[in-house]
């Protein structure tokens, strides 16, 4: 699976662990919400770098006050049509103040990347068969937008009036 981060293909240095998998020392692991909730104390004092993966039924509000513990949050797109994680991403960025890596996983194809980027995702685990070069290009398919989001593209109404 190809991983794109900040517009480049990168190696994935995170290991996604099952709830029963052992975690060794100082590695970078992605845990489930369930594991986080059960082992919060142990995990927060461990040496590992922590990431968490939420599926599309798990509203990030449940970790709103925990986001400081995570270097990475992965949000799942269970199907192309399931757009909940677009809202979740913006809430994490704009409301809960998450500054780490926000990764889109699951059904992730070229045609969602521009919007995902606008909603605050900065890394993308592409679905099998997705053209990598075109996907990187898709991150900048639009140079203008009508509305503000979690990126720094200025909405049209601000561009139009100097005073902003």
């Amino acid at each position, binding site marked *: 699976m190809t991983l794109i981060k900040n517009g480049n293909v990168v190696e994935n240095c995170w290991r996604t662990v099952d709830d029963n998998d052992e975690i060794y020392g100082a590695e970078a692991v992605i845990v489930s919400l369930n594991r986080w909730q059960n082992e919060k104390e142990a995990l927060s004092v461990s040496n590992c770098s922590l990431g968490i993966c939420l599926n599309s039924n798990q*509203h990030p509000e449940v970790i709103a006050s925990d986001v400081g513990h995570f270097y990475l949050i992965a949000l799942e797109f269970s199907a192309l049509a*399931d757009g*909940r994680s677009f809202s979740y991403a913006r809430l994490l960025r704009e409301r809960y103040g998450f500054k780490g890596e926000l990764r889109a996983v699951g059904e992730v194809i070229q045609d969602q990347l521009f919007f995902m980027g606008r909603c605050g995702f900065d890394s993308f685990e592409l679905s099998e068969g997705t053209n990598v070069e075109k996907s990187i290009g898709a991150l900048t*398919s639009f140079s203008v937008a009508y509305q503000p989001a979690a990126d720094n593209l200025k909405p049209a*109404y601000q561009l139009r*009036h100097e005073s902003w």
Partner: protein
Amino acid sequence: MYQYDQTDHTLIKERVAEYRDQVSRRLEGNISEDNFRPLRLKNGLYMQLHAYMLRVAIPYGLMSSDQLRMLAYIGRKYDKGYGHFTTRQNLQYNWPTLEDTPDILENLASVEMSAIQTSGNVNRNVTSDPYAGVAPDELEDPRPYAEIIRQFVTLHPEFSWLPRKFKIAITGAEDDRAAINVHDIGLKLKKNAAGEIGFIVLVGGGLGRSPFIGKVIREFLPKDDLIRYIQAILRVYNMEGRRDNLYKARIKILVHQLGIKNFAKLVEDEFKASKDDILLVGREEEERISAFFAPPDYVKLPIDDIGVVEASTNDNAFAEWLERNVTRHKQAGYAIVNVSLKPLDGVPGDITSDQMDAIARLAEKYSFSQIRATHRQNLVLPDVAKRDLISVWQGLCDKNLATANLNRISDIICCPGMDYCSLATTRSIPIAQRLNERFKHLDNILNIGEIHLNISGCINACGHHHVGHIGILGVEKNGEEFYQVTLGGSSSRDAEIGKIIGPAFSSEEIVDAVEKLIGVYISNREVGEQYLDTYRRIGPILFKEALYDAH
């Protein structure tokens, strides 16, 4: 009307490029039809019975002569020389090829038009009052806000994969010509006790399988909060709306299941939490947009035009058209002209490229180059000086566009049905045509008056049958077509969902059934009473008896 600046042009060009790439990937087999479907749908491209269908957005129903000419050109070049106006103030082409659609979009972009979000699970074309800005009963012109909303929802990064489609309608008038009660969000400009102007906000209205009248979620929303409040509703819906069942995915079901109180609480909480979002479009931008909708340069004219008065006493056909298709304008000496796309022998909403050109020319000459589309599938020339009415009438007569039937029994709303639509279970157009045949002379003999007769070819209700004074819904039983009748629906001020009156009728029986309903009205109406008033006064019993007792 609104005109694109550099930003709007750039955005639409980039969208065409993106779509062109999507189509070429499909043609090369680099994207599956399953993944391509939602992408083409977001661009108004459906797969129909015989071919693709492309739906072009006409933002809040407003077009210029140049735009209508382009629509005519596209109809000639890529279709069979015509188009079809829908109940969403949009235009559909029934015969484009997939390969041609990127070029069609490029043509559209050259006149500041697109097919963005005319279908799919996204915010659809914002609709509004076709008489906006010219209606005498208007508090304020809703179009600047319609345009602000259009921009906000266009290619929205967060709300482009909603549980289901989402429709916003807005009006500024007392008489609701935008059917705001049957939209996902309905907005109406209103004045509060302090004299400020804002909006009353309805949510969760809609037709289709489970029809609902919208519920009030905010009695008064200040203008500055409009976009932030819409964002709050969309965000709650995007996160909470059902995604497990296509038929329960519209916001109306969420509102219904949670109850309006609980739903409103979620929205108000989200609204409060978003108070720091920079969503205020700003006074300068609001003024910039409003300026595009300033009244045109009307000349000072007497209230009545002598020539018109004379012509109407000498020519019955003109007088009839004047009485039925011409509506009062807020400006003295001007009139609103309704262009009927419902000739008795035609298909409701169909228009040829030649007719489009003719209307574009008339608008250029007599109506400040503007045309509106209505949700009842007609067109409007909004600003005609009364002294020009005879010329406009003659111009329309030449092209079979002057059928004097606005809001009459032959002004039928009708979806494409089995003749085009792949979801259809029955035919609808032939029913409309047979009804017209039946009432051709009866309407004049009986003077049936104002009535909304709406026909849908299946439960999806694109023909708005639930809000027809008489609604007809096609249902299939064992491979045969039947037609269910609903009575008492209305989409305007006292909006109501019609009720099913009894067992469905066969295709042979349905025209007789409608005639019986009209018969009950004629024999029970009081002086000056319209069909819907009579129905509301006497109730369904007599109608029901007429339909079923003799059976």
